[in-house]
């Protein structure tokens, strides 16, 4: 019995505790990101935003959540019920699962795996399934058109994200997320790889279906796109997954380019704040830019979106990849094999 506890149950319970420690703040963050989005947009449009429920509208996300929880889940009669219900679950689960490898401080990570970047890339490339399954299973033209657009868009921008990640990896020489952050102790990668940073951020906007690339749910032409047939908690799961993905993409941007948990300079006033706080601040900064972009830019036309992905970002990131490799080799800065 003691062996069973020490061998399996004890570590298992510890892992579950760590998972809860990440998921609960994450869901709270998602809830308050929706409020922050409405507040920021309101401030940029000289409005007040939600300010009725609770002080400064702080209870608004809880009220929204309660409303969605109590609403009826309607399954259209022409829909494929299993896939229809599986789609929001897939979206939500994938958005949560990716956080397993995100390091919040040195060694503060649930699963410190060697291929952390590839894991994140794999999970984020799976996000398209929730959307395409929802569009197909709804048996509705609008939903299907939204899903097809989204699939094409996400697959296209994944390519340039992949090249950006490769150029960062070349500078680090490791696929481990902790190593990537530690490699930025002297200089954040956002400075030497600034063009790649911009490409990555714009591709992240497209990958999360955010404005100005929110074609999959373009309300002017597709009503609401892939989630038009969803209601109640199934809709809420899509919403939560989408916002959790935004936070995840911001976290990836911070880890790959903004030095993760590291303070801007390794000297006294900056080092007083602990690592996770710096990490959260960087994520918040990226999220603010997400919202800022939404308040500023009009939606792209679909062919322009594809042109940007395939004819601008893909050749450009490929070119910068070659330049980065050339510079690393020419100056002897390429990281050596550790083993």
């Amino acid at each position: 019995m003691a062996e069973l506890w020490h061998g399996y149950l004890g570590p298992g319970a510890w892992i579950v505790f760590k998972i809860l420690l990440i998921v609960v703040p994450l869901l709270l963050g998602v809830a308050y990101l929706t409020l922050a989005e409405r507040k920021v947009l309101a401030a940029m449009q000289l409005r007040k935003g939600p300010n009725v429920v609770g002080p400064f509208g702080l209870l608004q996300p809880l009220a929204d959540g309660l409303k969605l929880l109590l609403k009826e889940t309607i399954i259209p009669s022409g829909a494929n019920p299993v896939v229809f219900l599986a789609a929001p679950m897939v979206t939500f689960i994938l958005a949560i699962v990716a956080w397993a490898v995100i390091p919040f401080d040195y060694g503060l990570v649930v699963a410190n795996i060697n291929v952390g970047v590839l894991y994140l890339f794999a999970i984020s490339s799976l996000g398209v399934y929730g959307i395409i399954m929802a569009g197909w299973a709804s048996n509705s033209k609008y939903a299907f058109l939204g899903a097809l657009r989204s699939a094409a868009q996400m697959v296209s921008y994944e390519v340039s994200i992949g090249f950006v990640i490769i150029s960062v990896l070349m500078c680090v020489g490791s696929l481990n997320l902790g190593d990537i952050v530690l490699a930025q102790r002297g200089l954040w990668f956002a400075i030497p790889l600034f063009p790649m940073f911009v490409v990555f951020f714009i591709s992240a906007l497209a990958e999360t279906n955010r404005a100005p690339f929110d074609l999959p749910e373009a309300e002017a032409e597709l009503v609401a796109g892939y989630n038009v047939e969803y209601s109640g908690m199934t809709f809420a799961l899509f919403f939560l997954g989408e916002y959790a993905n935004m936070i995840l993409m911001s976290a990836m941007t911070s880890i790959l380019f903004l030095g993760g948990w590291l303070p801007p300079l390794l000297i006294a006033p900056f080092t007083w704040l602990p690592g996770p706080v710096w990490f959260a601040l960087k994520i918040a900064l990226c999220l603010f830019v997400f919202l800022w972009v939404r308040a500023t830019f009009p939606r792209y036309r679909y062919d322009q979106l594809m042109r940007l992905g395939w004819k601008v970002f893909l050749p450009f990131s490929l070119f910068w990849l070659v330049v980065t490799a050339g510079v690393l080799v020419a100056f002897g800065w390429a990281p050596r094999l550790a083993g």
Partner: protein
Amino acid sequence: MIVYAAAFYVFAAMAIASGAMVIASRNPVHSVLFLILAFFNAAGLFVLMGAEFLAMILVIVYVGAVAVLFLFVVMMLDINFAELRQGFLQYLPIGGLVGLILLVELLFVAGTWVFAPEAGQIVSDRPSGSGGTTNAHAIGLVLYTKYAYPFQLAGLVLLVAMIGAIVLTFRSRDGVRRQRVADQLARGPESAVELRKVKSGEGV
């Protein structure tokens, strides 16, 4: 060890079951979804073997890109199931032959240590001194040194396939007015806007 064995049997059983469902399910979209599940379980088996790099590449390439396009196409196709089932007996010999060849090949791979003990070296070829290196390093050490030419050859084959697909599907149409973004951006107010004095009562 119990957890390890249990994980192996769960992944293996799920992989076989979903593989069977790929050919058994009536709806082609369900088939593709089961195919994705099979890929996932194969990735799980790779992780259990300690080949986490291969597992991630499998998920990224097959699930993240290939199967998405598959699903894309299958959802758009208008498939007539009754017509599809008619040819079943007609194609059974060919399908059976392909299956048999694959089975024999698998048996050959599994049986190499009997027929040619040294051939097993190919399967378990590891770079010397790869004790502390990670998966990606180990694969890179073999792929870019010993198997550099086959690797380049595989890339060339893919390039030829890509060019072939483009050549087969490309058709040039006349009279298509394309948007030239560079020209649009190069336009300045001098060429785009004209200021005219219009006398009142006359018009332009």
